[in-house]
């Protein structure tokens, strides 16, 4: 493997300090992966502590012609934070402070390395919270959430990251530091904040995030509805929405998920159920009180054999535990899993779910479905053992077919995990070349070039054409780990 130049490493140390730079092979291995099954070994890792560090590092990367990959906690599920082209990997975890808290206007300014749940914890005593709640919220960072436009169960009613970010501080590829948006003031102009959210670190590095905080609802009640068939459960999802109810969250777990989580987590899901729905209603006490009869009736009319609900925080937490910790529990079934992320119009869920099972059956793969049913955001989780010869190829093939199924049903190839490297070649299923070229013009507008998180989010022929691959670029090929 080639080494980044000693000069570059020395300069990085001069910028961020000796303890901020890692380049020994055994250190770099820790940064080779994120939450996907792909890998990419960086040439060097540097932890900036200030915006000025970031600016200097970005300039240095450009000067040396090496890729720069910003990274949050590395929990991403599309390979967005992998150094697939080598270069400088820049975890933002040391920039994790709460910089401003404006209680009157319910606005916070945080550094990108702030852990998602930590922000809600910090403001909880003011009865406030930060709404986007990806399942990895105990670990993932706000900066990573901004890059991926992360969602979560409660985005059904409250919206995704883009709906809660009011302004950004960016470092552009030339090192310039720029603020976008009104930081709580709706001042108009082109919505640059809106396009940077979800751009997967390809336009600029985010160094500050101004977010909206919400007032905690007065009352919350969580319902568990148990079904003997998947069809009944999906019909219930449509019925809840059709009844004009917007739950705070509307999640589905299928049989395989129930069987994985229940023995370990004891969340109260019947082991013989085909599916359970978790429905959370929040808001005014009156609204929640009225919902008990109303939601219960809707869920039962669709064939629920049991509907339970809880408003006690501990009991609610128990009902949620199987959902929030499902992916960890899958380890009991198979050593590896591959989480997919597709979206379909909610009304198409029954046929699409049936298709997901059929595809996995055909590939002789076990699949567990645990997902945001209310907005049609599927997360089929394919379970496998990578030591089985040829299984990884089958998993990827099934994944591609499931994505195709979502697209054919009028949906999209990602609801909240991003495109990264995982799905860049599926982009042409939903966008024309013209669409993608128009999007990529934004790289020119931001002066991003192709050095900012190269080869991500777009097909390699579109986004990765002119990537500089100087001798300084360290790259470990796939053969090194297969």
């Amino acid at each position: 493997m080639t080494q980044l130049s000693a000069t570059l490493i020395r300069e990085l140390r001069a910028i961020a300090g000796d303890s901020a730079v890692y380049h020994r092979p055994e250190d770099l291995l820790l940064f080779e992966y994120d939450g996907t099954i792909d890998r990419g070994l960086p040439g060097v890792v540097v932890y900036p502590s200030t915006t000025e560090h970031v600016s200097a590092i970005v300039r240095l990367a450009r000067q040396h012609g090496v890729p720069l990959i910003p990274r949050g906690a590395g929990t991403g599920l599309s390979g967005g934070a992998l150094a697939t082209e080598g270069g400088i990997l820049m975890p933002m975890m040391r920039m994790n402070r709460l910089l401003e808290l404006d209680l009157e206007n319910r606005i916070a300014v945080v550094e990108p390395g702030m852990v998602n749940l930590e922000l809600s914890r910090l403001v909880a005593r003011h009865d406030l919270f930060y709404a986007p709640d990806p399942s990895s919220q105990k670990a993932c960072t706000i900066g990573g959430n901004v890059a991926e436009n992360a969602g979560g169960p409660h985005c059904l009613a409250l919206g995704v990251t883009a709906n809660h970010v009011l302004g950004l501080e960016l470092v552009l590829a030339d090192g310039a530091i720029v603020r976008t948006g009104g930081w709580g003031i709706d001042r108009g102009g082109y919505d640059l904040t809106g396009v940077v959210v979800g751009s997967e670190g390809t336009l600029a590095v985010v160094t500050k995030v101004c977010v909206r905080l919400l007032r905690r609802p007065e009352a919350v009640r969580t319902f568990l509805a148990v079904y003997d068939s998947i069809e009944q459960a999906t019909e219930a999802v449509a019925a809840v929405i059709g009844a004009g109810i917007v739950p705070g969250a509307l999640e589905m777990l299928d049989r395989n998920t129930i069987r994985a989580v229940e023995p370990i987590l004891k969340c109260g899901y019947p082991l013989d159920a085909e599916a359970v729905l978790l429905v959370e209603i929040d808001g005014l006490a009156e609204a929640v009180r009225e919902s008990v009869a109303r939601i219960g009736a809707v869920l039962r009319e669709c064939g629920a054999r049991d509907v339970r609900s809880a408003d006690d925080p501990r009991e609610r937490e128990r009902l949620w535990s199987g959902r929030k910790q499902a992916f960890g529990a899958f380890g009991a079934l198979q050593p590896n899993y591959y989480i997919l992320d597709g979206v379909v119009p909610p009304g198409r869920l029954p046929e699409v779910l049936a298709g997901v099972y059929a595809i996995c059956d055909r590939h002789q793969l076990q699949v567990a479905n645990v997902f945001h049913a209310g907005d049609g955001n599927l997360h089929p989780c394919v379970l496998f053992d990578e030591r089985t010869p040829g299984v990884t190829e089958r998993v990827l093939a099934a994944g591609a077919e499931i994505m195709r199924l979502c697209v054919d049903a009028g949906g999209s190839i990602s609801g909240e995990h991003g495109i990264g490297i995982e799905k860049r070649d599926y982009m042409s299923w939903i966008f024309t070349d013209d669409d993608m070229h128009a999007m990529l013009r934004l790289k020119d507008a931001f002066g991003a070039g192709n050095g900012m998180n190269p080869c991500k989010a777009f097909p390699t022929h579109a986004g990765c054409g002119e990537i500089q691959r100087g001798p300084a670029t360290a790259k470990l090929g796939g053969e090194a780990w297969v």
Partner: protein
Amino acid sequence: MMTTADALAALAAHPELDLLSQAHVAGYIVDGIAPIAVVRPRSEAGVIAAVRQAAAAGVPVLPWGGGTSVNGGNRLASPCLVIDLAALDQVIEYQPRDRTITAGAGLRLAALAKLVEAEGQLLPLEPPLPERATIGGALASGLSGPRRHRYGSARDLLIGSTAVLADGTCVHSGGRVAKNVAGYDLNKLWVGSAGTLAVITQASFRLWPAPPVTELALLAFPTAKAAHRAAMEIAGSPLQPLSLDLAGPATLAATAVPPADVWWLCIENGGTPAMVERLRGELRAVASRCGAERTVAVRGQEAAGVRGMLRDFGYPAAPDALLLRVVTLPSRLAEAVLATAALQDAPLPALVARAGAGMLLARWSDIEPAAARRVIVRVRAAVAALGGSVAIAHAAAAVKDGLDTWGINGGDVAIMQQVKQVYDPAGLLSPGRAPGEHEH
């Protein structure tokens, strides 16, 4: 190079386009500038053809929706080919069970509202004059209405779009599902871009269920400060009203609400009867804590009248009117009111504020150009001291001459200019109107 006459001849012959006769052109005068011609495409292909022909001849283009806010923005730099999107008014897909709708840019918002209302749903996108305003115009102008307090603005409701760039390239972004992170989110860029980046031809929105019961509560306060205090208290509470608007003295005079020298805080409550009753009680308590002189609850036609007035405030804009959009942090709204309304030697404006969003609309209905420019300069200076900014939402062409109507500054304006540059390098779309593009 193709001449303008060649382009017009090609457009006249195109099967997907109607070239309007000179008799109709008078309705399309903007900033005192008559259009070169007006075309009404019958389809997206027609829009693409019109934009391509214009680009080939170097003719500037002005996209046209309902014409309700097209006089806003920087003074138009030159005569344009107007592309009126009125014929693109089809509902392309509506599945109530999916809570999404896709329609042509020319569809009027009132028509869309009627359609989804029949299914108990709501598109809470409420620009002024919904009988005339179109989807495309609402998105391009970025205008919002009272219910943005509960449901957010256009950027929060738009999930997908089709738009035609200045070179005729047709671009899709987003899709027809509520959650989607594939590709750069160009939807966000088109919203509020005032027709300077692309001609929006189609849009998809997420819908909300319509609240079963709504009621408008009106709280009268002796001062803006007291009304603002009440607004801040409501905004910070777990109560989630649909809207939270402040109306200045005499602003509601034309409605059923008795005119009086008071500040009205207008709150629309929605939900089940029990929720609405609870909200009514809570608001009464806020009113008494904050020193309200009286409270009134209105429903039905009366409520619709007040709601319409709050939504349409400032529109249709009279030729000599001045309408400013002042934005600050919500906590500084009372100061913004003072900065706007307490100018010496200037007539008092009528005021409406979206209190939750920190947005104040101030209208001077008939003001001399010189006086209008003085007002703009002074309001901008006073609001800048509050950390806010002031956009000119409407002014006579003479007032806008050489002025930047956006009222924004900062390092990101340079990026906005580069965005304009990459999407419209020849400056053909709504010439003169992009951020930072005004004449000095």
